[in-house]
């Protein structure tokens, strides 16, 4: 890409506002139709994958808000998801709490933890902050393991399927409807936060803290707000995950999960909301894709036992490729392609 602005490129830039919003409406309408008709054609397996993608996108949106917009890196995302899942699990097991109590309770726990996770950010930046969230991840996981030990056995917690307004949510389709609603809600929340005064404060703090402070933004409060909102959403995603699986065990929340979420926002495109969805889609589908590819390779039987290792290796490789060659992620790739296509169409 050259830095010089090509005449045709300039015209696309000037043309953009009108055509762009029209295209956005077109694309969203297409997407809405696809989302609505999907469950009528999908097999239970496809529905399960779709539900996983939706769960992942809620988590990715909240991390995007924190890292992509407020610029605060977190390696403790899995710890927060675990906290939400365990809050829902423990409440359901010990007190028989229903879904509509478990979810807000998880949100509250997440918010509180977010405050704690966010405290180091007041003094630390960059790598040091990442490390402190990493440390908190291990502490949350330790607490979860301790609880499992206390209850006896390392079996984890079983959670009965939730019910809403008398309807039991225990089929893939019911979950799909609930999770689509959840993902849309999460998107609206993050979208509104990003466009509000708070969101502009995030951007300012992300850009340069000193300047943000000079502009009258309370840097400490902005950072803590980012952590609290993001962590609260993350914990809710964790609680949804727990209800969806019907089972919580600390094994599921390894550091690898945190890394997967970071990969989602990088691969999707950091600092963009559609990027969170694209990243969640990509990272959730990758293992299935690999499984399919490996099954068609010669010697598939021999590879079957180490499929997780193939996943790890491929995942690391994809992440490196994006970091090195396309740091603006799938969204950046899409925009570049789009621009190239438009220029191609307009120039004679």
């Amino acid at each position, binding site marked *: 890409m050259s830095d010089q602005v090509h005449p045709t490129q300039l015209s696309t830039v000037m043309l953009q506002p009108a055509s762009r919003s029209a295209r956005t409406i077109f694309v969203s309408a297409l997407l809405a139709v696809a989302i609505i008709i999907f469950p009528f054609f999908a097999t239970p397996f496809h529905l399960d994958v779709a539900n996983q993608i939706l769960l992942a996108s809620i988590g990715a949106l909240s991390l995007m808000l924190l890292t992509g917009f407020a610029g605060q890196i977190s390696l403790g995302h899995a710890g927060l998801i675990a906290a939400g899942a365990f809050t829902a699990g423990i409440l359901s097991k010990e007190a028989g709490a229903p879904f509509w109590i478990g979810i807000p309770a998880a949100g509250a726990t997440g918010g509180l933890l977010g405050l704690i996770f966010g405290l180091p950010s007041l003094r630390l930046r960059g790598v040091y902050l990442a490390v402190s969230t990493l440390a908190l991840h291990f502490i949350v996981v330790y607490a979860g393991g301790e609880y499992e030990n206390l209850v006896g056995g390392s079996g984890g917690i079983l959670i009965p399927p939730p019910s809403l307004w008398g309807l039991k949510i225990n089929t893939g389709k019911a979950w799909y409807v609930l999770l689509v609603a959840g993902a849309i809600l999460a998107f609206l929340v993050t979208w509104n936060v990003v466009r509000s005064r708070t969101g502009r404060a995030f951007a300012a703090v992300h850009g340069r803290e000193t300047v943000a402070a000079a502009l009258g933004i309370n840097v400490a409060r902005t950072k803590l707000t980012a952590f609290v909102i993001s962590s609260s959403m993350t914990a809710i995603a964790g609680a949804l995950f727990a209800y969806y699986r019907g089972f919580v065990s600390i094994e599921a929340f390894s550091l690898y999960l945190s890394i997967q979420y970071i990969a989602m926002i990088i691969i999707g495109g950091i600092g963009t909301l559609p990027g969170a969805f694209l990243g969640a889609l990509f990272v959730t589908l990758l293992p299935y894709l690999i499984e399919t590819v490996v099954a068609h390779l010669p010697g598939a039987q021999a590879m079957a036992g180490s499929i997780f290792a193939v996943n*790890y290796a491929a995942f690391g490789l994809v992440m490196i490729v994006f970091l090195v060659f396309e740091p603006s992620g799938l969204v950046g790739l899409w925009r570049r392609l789009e621009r190239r296509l438009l220029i191609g169409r307009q120039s004679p």
Partner: protein
Amino acid sequence: MQIVLNILVLGSIYSLISCGYVIIYKVSRVLNLAHGELMMVGAYLLLTTASAGWLGSPLAAIGLALVLSLTVGILVYVLLMRRMTGESVLAAVLTTIALGILIRGAVVLLWSAQHHYPATKLHIANPSIELFQNAKLSLISLILIGVTVATYAALFAFMRFGRWGLRMRATGQNALLAAQRGVNLHAVYALAWGISTFTGAVAGMLIALDSGLDSTIVMIGLKAFPAALVGGLDSLAGAIIGSIIISASEVILIQHFNPLLSDAVPFLILIAMLVIRPWGLFGTREELDRV
């Protein structure tokens, strides 16, 4: 007495690993979160050279594995991290995380997920030695303590008196000025990655010889990171002190309270340190503001 010995051994393990974090951070301000994985690669390389019959003696196998580890470290810089020079610190850290995941997968694919015993392959006996009354130590652990002392002595001498050590310190202080004085930055960085992986591999091999080898060794590498940070990420002497603090608290708490704490303790101390004194016991404060 046994507790003191246990602390000493664990402290040596952490010291030997954490100096790798320090070297790379000191020279290039990159936090290498793939250090545990690179250490694991070193140990698995020993497994391979141990299986090669034509090498003859165990020492040759260890030597070859060490040379290979050094090469791996340099290659990681030349092929991957070199591209991240000039990018944001965070992008570099994320790249090392991705590299770590890649290595974890690749190691299982190449060497299988089984628990291996390189010591039996090399026919190295590991008798336990009674140093004091009721206080025993395995031979390899004893060697490990000696190797750690030797490694640190060599590193201090190298950084203080060596020509390349001087270049490394200069680059760490101000890369731009160093480059203007004719220091080949890429060579310095590559060397830092090489040395770091080399020392990590030494630690990994000794751990593997002592207690066998599988992918859980990565966790030991990750737990050595708090040790480096507690001491100060740019201080070699700090790494030793930090390692002893971490290992002492870990051993004592496990013995008296709860074995589950093992993975959490180093990070609890890390948090405490970040709250009180983020730049560590011996780190320079100015470093933190540059991050």
